[in-house]
């Protein structure tokens, strides 16, 4: 392009524009009418026009005193078509690709899109995928863009091997990794495909494994993944440098802030002199010290660990130093992403308010409290600098998940037979955090309706108020011989729950219910016959719970106990005192295998020697004592004409120990196996034997052991239990096989 310099541009003519306006082209030119013909400026204009990405070609030439701008517009994409993609759906590819119909087609954008699609295939373990973009010319300078995709085979991991790992052999290290070697029985899992991100995660896991077991000098020298010529298999090799094994040397705790009482803090230190070096223990010690200091209201302190390694004695001295941290205050807390949830429903969970001292562990605990609401699938609290260096702004980013549940269930259980249940629930009603639920359950033998409403922060206080209305009808179940009379009860309760301290919680419930026993059959024992009729129960119950488990939904460690006392007799026709103590301990045996040991003792006392009616007594069996029918254990009367009734008891002792383990299947399948042993005893029905009834009432332990499978299948939870009662009484009712399945759709 020979642009002769000199002379003035009298006129600018734009040629070749079709869709784009001339004014738009001119707006990108650096030169304008009246400027001199200056090659640099004109070159700049050329670059500017190309940078817009709108033009396939741009030429500037001089025609006398007119600058001619000749452009060829990039074609417009008419349609984008994907061919040959089977494993990855078209929508997934479409959302990954930038080019769409009506956008401008440029070669560079096509290359970028091809690369993006290859990344999707790599993430799905298909490194041999090839993608060919094809163009179909249409009139009016339009094109159809076709991506021809050859997905190629799954690239699995053939072998994972390690170099100079003298202390732990290859298989031990492979157990630590998530990536597994391809084997036929791993058809369900995707962990045996090659994924570079997952491999980097594995490297970190191995590093932490060595740090946990006493090797602070450990390093991964290199990790290489070679693709076989057939492009369907990878060989992974990791070269390690283990270093020597260290023990903990001197452990010191000092504080740069005077008058901090170090004694209670020392108890929290987990790193003991002489133990093997363990990085996790150091980390958890720091967290524990930090929390303890936080509880003692030291707002601005931090714990700094310094390690001193002695290669000669192979010991590591630890010095935990408590130093003042900079004084930072929370200037402002912004909450984003709450499309439905009200701002205060989130804000009231935060342990910090605006103006308070900034405290990292409180921010972490606040994040956990908001997560525990169960309204969000992602919660992140990010601090950033405020208007002055000593002020911080906290931004709470939320992404809401649906909290409404509509469940229609078809089920079968050996105790109830076929059953239908329907429930509609909204755990975050109109974003106010209030929980509203209506549920009903129908089976051949019983019908239930419940409506319940809970406001977790009644009047902006940490006070959970709730109301339930319920009605249950249970018909005689002669075939199963558990109950030989009809019982129906209707009523409501009002409950209030509040924390006493951060682990201790109290729940007070007032209940008013009307219960009627009727329609006894010919075989019903005379004893039960006398209890026909209606009673009204008006009772207040207090339930004090101390919960030190690591999680409420899936506990793996910690313990809890609950003391429940119920007094019936404030009005109503029934007077009794019912007390129960329930407690459970969880032991994490090894990776996600958990032993649970749980026990319960209960005692009912008729007030003023009053006779305790059958519907208020304890029953044992079914879920509470596997291997036996519902109410299959405990005092029992036999009528002269062949019928028998479980009378229930006033004194109950029961216990269970259960080990749950996943048996190697990948976690996302939700299959767990259980081995359990249940024991239990129930006595003191308080009846004197009536003439005409044969009668058993004794304090004798029953026991059963068994195995179970539970599966959170896509269409509903299934549970199968097989229990053998190896210690029982002749008159107990046995039920070795229990099966329950509920489907939600």
């Amino acid at each position, binding site marked *: 392009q020979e642009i002769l310099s000199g002379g003035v541009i009298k006129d600018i003519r734009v040629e070749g524009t079709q869709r784009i306006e001339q004014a738009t082209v001119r707006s990108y030119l650096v030169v304008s009418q009246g400027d001199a013909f200056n090659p640099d400026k004109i070159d700049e204009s050329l670059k500017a026009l190309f940078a817009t990405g709108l033009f396939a070609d741009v030429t500037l030439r001089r025609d006398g005193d007119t600058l001619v701008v000749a452009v060829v517009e990039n074609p417009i994409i008419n349609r984008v078509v994907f061919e040959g993609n089977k494993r990855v759906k078209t929508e997934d590819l479409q959302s*990954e690709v930038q080019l769409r119909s009506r956008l401008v087609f440029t070669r560079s954008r096509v290359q970028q899109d091809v690369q993006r699609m290859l990344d999707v295939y790599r993430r799905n373990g298909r490194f041999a995928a090839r993608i060919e973009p094809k163009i179909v010319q249409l009139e009016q300078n339009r094109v159809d863009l076709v991506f021809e995709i050859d997905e190629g085979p799954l690239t699995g991991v053939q072998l994972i091997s390690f170099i100079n790992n003298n202390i732990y052999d290859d298989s031990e290290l492979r157990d630590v990794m998530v990536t597994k070697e391809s084997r036929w029985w791993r058809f369900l899992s995707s962990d045996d495909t090659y994924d570079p991100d997952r491999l980097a995660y594995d490297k970190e896991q191995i590093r932490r494994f060595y740090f946990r077991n006493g090797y602070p000098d450990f390093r991964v020298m290199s990790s290489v993944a070679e693709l076989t010529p057939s492009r369907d298999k990878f060989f992974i090799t990791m070269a390690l440098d283990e270093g020597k094994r260290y023990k903990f040397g001197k452990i010191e705790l000092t504080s740069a802030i005077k008058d901090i009482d170090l004694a209670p803090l020392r108890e929290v230190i987990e790193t003991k002199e002489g133990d093997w070096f363990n990085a996790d223990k150091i980390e958890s010690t720091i967290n524990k010290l930090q929390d303890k200091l936080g509880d003692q209201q030291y707002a601005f302190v931090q714990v700094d660990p310094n390690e001193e390694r002695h290669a000669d004695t192979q010991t590591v001295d630890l010095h935990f130093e408590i130093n003042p941290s900079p004084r930072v205050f929370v200037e402002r807390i912004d909450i984003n992403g709450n499309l439905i949830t009200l701002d205060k429903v989130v804000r009231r969970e935060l342990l910090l308010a605006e103006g308070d001292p900034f405290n990292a562990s409180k921010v972490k605990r606040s994040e956990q409290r908001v997560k525990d609401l169960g309204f969000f699938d992602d919660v992140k609290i990010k601090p950033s600098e405020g208007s002055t260096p000593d002020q911080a702004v906290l931004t709470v980013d939320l992404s809401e998940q649906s909290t409404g549940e509509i469940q229609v269930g078809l089920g079968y259980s050996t105790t109830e037979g076929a059953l239908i249940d329907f429930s509609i629930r909204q755990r975050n009603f109109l974003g106010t955090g209030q929980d509203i639920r209506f549920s009903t359950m129908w089976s051949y033998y019983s019908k239930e309706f419940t409506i319940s409403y809970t406001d977790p922060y009644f009047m902006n206080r940490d006070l959970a108020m709730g109301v339930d209305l319920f009605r249950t009808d249970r018909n005689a179940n002669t075939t199963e011989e558990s109950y030989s009379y009809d019982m129906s009860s209707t009523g409501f309760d009002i409950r209030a729950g509040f924390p006493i301290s951060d682990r201790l919680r109290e729940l007070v419930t007032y209940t008013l219910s009307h219960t009627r026993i009727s329609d006894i059959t010919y075989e019903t024992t005379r004893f039960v016959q006398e209890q026909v009729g209606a009673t009204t129960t008006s009772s207040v119950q207090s339930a004090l719970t101390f919960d030190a488990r690591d999680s409420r939904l899936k506990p793996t460690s910690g313990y809890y106990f609950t003391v429940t006392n119920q007094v019936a007799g404030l009005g109503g026709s029934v007077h009794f005192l019912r007390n129960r103590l329930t407690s459970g301990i969880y032991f994490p045996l090894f990776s996600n295998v958990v032993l649970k040991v749980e026990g319960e003792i209960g005692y009912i006392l008729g007030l003023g020697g009053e006779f305790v009616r059958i519907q208020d007594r304890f029953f044992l069996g079914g879920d509470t004592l596997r291997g036996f029918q519902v109410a299959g254990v405990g005092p029992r009367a036999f009528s002269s004409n062949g019928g028998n009734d479980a009378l229930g008891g006033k004194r109950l002792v029961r216990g269970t120990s259960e080990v749950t383990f996943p048996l190697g299947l990948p976690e996302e399948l939700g299959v767990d196996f259980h081995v359990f042993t249940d024991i239990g005893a129930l006595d003191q029905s308080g009846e004197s034997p009536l003439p005409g009834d044969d009668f058993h009432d004794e304090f004798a332990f029953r026991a059963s052991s068994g195995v179970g499978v539970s599966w959170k299948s896509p269409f509903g939870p299934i549970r199968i239990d097989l229990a053998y009662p190896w210690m029982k009484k002749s008159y107990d009712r046995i039920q070795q096989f229990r099966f329950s399945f509920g489907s939600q759709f």
Partner: protein
Amino acid sequence: CTPTVNNRGNLVEDRRLADVHPGTSTKEDVQKALGSPSTTSTLDANVWYYIGAITENEAFFDPDIVQQRVLQVSFNDQGVVSAIGDVDLTQQQDISPEDRETPTAGHEVTFLEQLMGNLNREKKKDDKKKKGGG
């Protein structure tokens, strides 16, 4: 059982006050010693307040105040400390806030809308989900 203890606002201890001297300390000195003021007077930027408290709350009862301080630091026009004093907390009035509110507008989320979940803003797809099985 131990009530939960909270540190609210910027409670200035006497120890830190020792570094602030009327007549000599400037605004920067006070800022360094006590931090940024909790607030300044509505009309006069030369009057700083440091407001802080330690509260304990048990169960659902109102938090009771263990220790509270409203410190007033006044500066002259040259920005030098002219007076330091504690607001007399016995003068705290027990008022019940007016429950009227200035009206605001904006689209209210209706129950049906929440149930159907069809808010008019599409939720952004989470790219983690796009990883998808092989």
